[in-house]
């Protein structure tokens, strides 16, 4: 049955018990993203801390918090929850690399070979990539994260 390949236990666990859900202060930027085909939405905030020895925010800045609120299917909610596990504590540059790896996996149409060292729990979404209609669900929170980080850096004039 293909359903079990898609709805891995990890995904259902994150869906039922999402990590770090809720909007928190302080934050540098907030992004609100909507999936126009189904109406699912996420509001996501990013707080960044300048890299050691630097005054402003740059690629070396550390993601100190990601908080979010949203309505959506298990895939979009779980992938946002996993995102907070993966990206908090990393630098912006590392986060962007993880985002690129996750995006590549989601666009692999089921043929991706994810690197578990990079994607950790997010490898569970490999099965979702077989369903093109659901890829947007998995990327919803990630695109909001990218947007919020870009806004944070722009404010700094990077």
């Amino acid at each position, binding site marked *: *049955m*293909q*359903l079990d390949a*898609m*709805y891995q236990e990890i995904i*259902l666990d994150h869906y039922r018990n999402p990590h770090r859900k809720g909007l928190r202060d302080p934050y540098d930027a907030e992004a609100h993203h909507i999936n126009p*085909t*189904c*109406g*699912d*939405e996420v509001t996501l905030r990013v707080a960044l801390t300048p890299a050691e020895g630097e005054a402003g925010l740059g690629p070396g800045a550390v993601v100190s918090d990601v908080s979010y609120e949203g*309505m*959506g*299917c*298990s*895939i979009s909610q779980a992938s946002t929850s996993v995102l907070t596990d993966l990206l908090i504590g990393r630098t912006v540059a590392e986060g962007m690399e993880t985002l690129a790896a996750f995006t590549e996996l989601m666009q692999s149409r089921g043929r991706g070979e994810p690197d578990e060292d990079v994607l950790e729990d997010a490898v569970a979404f490999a099965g979702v990539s077989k*369903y093109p209609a*659901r890829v947007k*669900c998995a990327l919803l929170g990630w695109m909001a994260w990218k947007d919020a980080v870009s806004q944070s850096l722009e404010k700094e004039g990077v």
Partner: protein
Amino acid sequence: MTTVREFGQAGSGLLDVAAIREDFPILSRTVRDGRPLVYLDSGATSQKPRQVLDAEREFYERHNAAVHRGAHQLAEEATDAYESARETIAAFVGGDVGEVVFTKNATESINLVAYAMGNAATADDALRRFQVGPGDEIVVTEMEHHANLVPWQELCRRTGATLRWFPVTDEGRLDLSGIDELVNERTKVVAFTHQSNVLGTVNPVGEIVARARRVGALTVLDACQSVPHMPVDVRELGVDFLAFSGHKMLGPNGIGVLWGRRELLEAMPPFITGGSMIGVVHMEYSTWADPPQRFEAGVPMTPQAVALAAACDYLSKVGMDRIAAHEHALVGYALERLGAIEGVRIVGPADTVDRGGAVSFEVEGIHPHDLGQVLDDRGVEVRVGHHCAWPLHRKLGIVATTRASFYLYNTPEDVDALVDAVRAAQEFFGVRG
């Protein structure tokens, strides 16, 4: 062609679906690892019988040429085929042949009217009937498909007119209590759906048209979900314009229809301009052809018109009243069986009075996307999302719904498969009540 027999016990209202299904090759295929296909998404697009596919192929194989151009034999035959398709389709909705305009789809049909009105706004007083501007009002409803909402929003934005709307009640019907205030002497257009694509609600066309006429407003009816599913007669409805799509009524993609009252089409300026829609052309200016050609610029979709006429013939042979009765029986059965599942909430009228063949619902604890995935895994193909009616969902306080929609080829067993799949989803996600 199918012979139609009474299905099951007499008086059940059901068609002889087994015979009908033989005409639809796609319905015998399997999906997702060998599951029989249970197609419950005809509200989005219908499947096509062989007769329709054959008509399109035959046109290409025997008569293909550009219509209304050239004097050779194929051009003559193609033009005859195109115009006789127009006759068949006009008769199917009780209109005259000169009142049927072919478009790309119903969305374009509605845009044609909205843009013609926008074009009239900057013209002289001869087009006053179609002019809207500041102080004028356009009335729609809260249950509209985006196709019958956004074009009017845009017309208001371009002209300064004001958009107003009929609210929807909690049970999914139009609230007409404020109709006399809402549709008033400032109202220029009342655009509304015949049957909601989400709720299944069939709206009281007569009452709305009567009020619109009293104040001199034009009426535009979105008939996408009614023309395929019930007998529709434009004269009986009394509307000024009526739009529908071919692909939802067993016809091909790429063709829609705008029916318009002859005197209105004759007075209305064009939307898209170019070849075939002209009277005379000079370097400085052009004049327009009479309708319907005025609204059909460029080489039209003749093979699709021919195939849509074949679809009308197919539907007429089965009988639109019998198709409506068949769907009515299926909806009644679906409401009863789905409604009996703990955790399922039907969105829209809970009974079958003035209700067509679309049943949208929520399942407690399961997002529609996740529900749709489980259904799909079992071969049950439904629509999930807001069904291009986002404001309606917002009004009902829900993000998205799951919609099963029926047609003449669906059976009570399809409803059973849906019900079983919903229960399976509840088990899979551990939310069974």
